[in-house]
């Protein structure tokens, strides 16, 4: 996963861009029903439909995207902006979550995490390269810290008991999420 926090010119955070590269299993499984063109590439319209459906379903789960301002979940607008394609047999989907109100990171503490609250799908930032970016000139001077998950012991024990296709119920996912903490001195 790649994420980029979007800033306006006034230096306020206005949204979060999220890009997901799905794993081989999910990609093969979902792409199997997508029509292919003669050259073997996937029909873009069908890919878009898949992405739209996924986003529609995800909207009930706040797009697996959790942005906290001073420790409180910030409300955002429905996602309309997305892109999807297949590269090397893996499905890619990117979308932008826009905040209802722009947030001034100098005045408020901002941190965000992207995770599956049911702990069914593991979502981690790409290990290689620069998976976390800032977009916009207003981001100048800002930095971030990526906090690795540190689940409480009981939670990690419980999660260890879960099998591949079991969910732990809503809520446990947050303990295994990577959290990005923004600082704009």
């Amino acid at each position: 996963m790649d994420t980029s926090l979007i800033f306006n010119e006034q230096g306020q955070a206005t949204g979060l861009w999220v890009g997901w590269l799905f794993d081989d299993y999910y990609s093969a499984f979902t792409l199997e029903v997508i029509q292919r063109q003669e050259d073997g590439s996937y029909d873009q319209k069908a890919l878009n439909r898949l992405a739209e459906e996924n986003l529609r379903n995800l909207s009930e789960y706040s797009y697996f995207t959790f942005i906290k301002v001073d420790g409180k979940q910030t409300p955002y607008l429905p996602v309309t902006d997305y892109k999807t394609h297949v590269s090397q047999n893996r499905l890619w989907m990117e979308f932008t979550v826009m905040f209802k109100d722009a947030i001034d990171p100098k005045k408020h503490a901002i941190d965000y995490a992207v995770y599956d609250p049911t702990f069914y799908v593991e979502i981690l930032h790409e290990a290689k390269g620069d998976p976390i970016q800032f977009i916009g000139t207003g981001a100048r001077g800002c930095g971030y810290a990526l906090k690795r998950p540190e689940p409480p012991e009981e939670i990690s024990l419980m999660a260890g008991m879960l099998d591949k296709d079991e969910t732990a119920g809503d809520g446990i996912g947050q303990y295994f999420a990577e959290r990005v903490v923004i600082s704009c001195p």
Partner: protein
Amino acid sequence: MPIIFLCFISILFFPMAAHAADVSYWSELVSFIHTQQQAFHRELAATIRQIQEGGIKAAWAMISISFLYGVFHAAGPGHGKAGISTYLLSHESQLKRGLFLSFSAAFVQGLSAVLLVEGMVGIVGWSRQEVKGMVPLLEMASFGLIGLIGLILMKRALTSFYKRMKARQNTASLNFDHDHDEKGNQECSSCGHSHAPSIEELSVKTSLKDTLAIIFSVGIRPCSGSVLVLIFAEIIGLRWAGITSVFMISFGTALTVSSFAILAIYFRKIALSIVNYKNDSILHNFVSLITFCGGLLIALIAFSLFLKAQDYGHPLF
């Protein structure tokens, strides 16, 4: 003596029992196993892709990764580890039998994944989505059956305990001052006066039926990781790679489960031999206690998994 038993149970069911001293070690171990198996599972897909791209060398990588995935994956629940170990803990068994149980259950589990995916997609013509939807149902069936085995173990323990109590009452009133010559006496065969009862005499009678019931109830549930591998391999046109991989996963699973089985058998031997020195009526009760507690644990775990295994919606599937 129950301490040894408790130790074993805590190894077996560590998430529940581990709130003792070494919580952080367990927690680290559990999360290590969890991360490892997920990494192996991802890598498995990558190696199957490499085979597709013409690298026959990748076949060896696939086989060894499948095996390792099996070893780590079986450390999680639902591979008969708890059921088989508790059964072996409460019933006198040879090492051979423990290994047979572990390996057959793992093999049948692999077979059930292959039959489900290849049979249903290839022969019956189900869609892969339908096949995936079947997994929770089979899981429920398996957990339900394992829970039932737990209940049967509890019932066995209670029956043998009750019978012994009754026999003791009878002998107490009828042969109050009998001596040790009466060892062979039918009335006294289980009254606790023979000084060296063989363990075979003490354990609840085991049978082929038990073995088959355990193998079936564990094996009916296809390992969901294997189902994903099979579906994946089938989609990219490498059915045989998928099947080979699943049986290597089973082999890895069998190895993990059988190490638990071996532990169970030796724990039982050691525990019984220590109790044996003191008093054999305690020994009887001890066996019943193990059987009862084991049955209760299996039943509780299986039924809680049963409730969790039900199908649920996920936004991405």
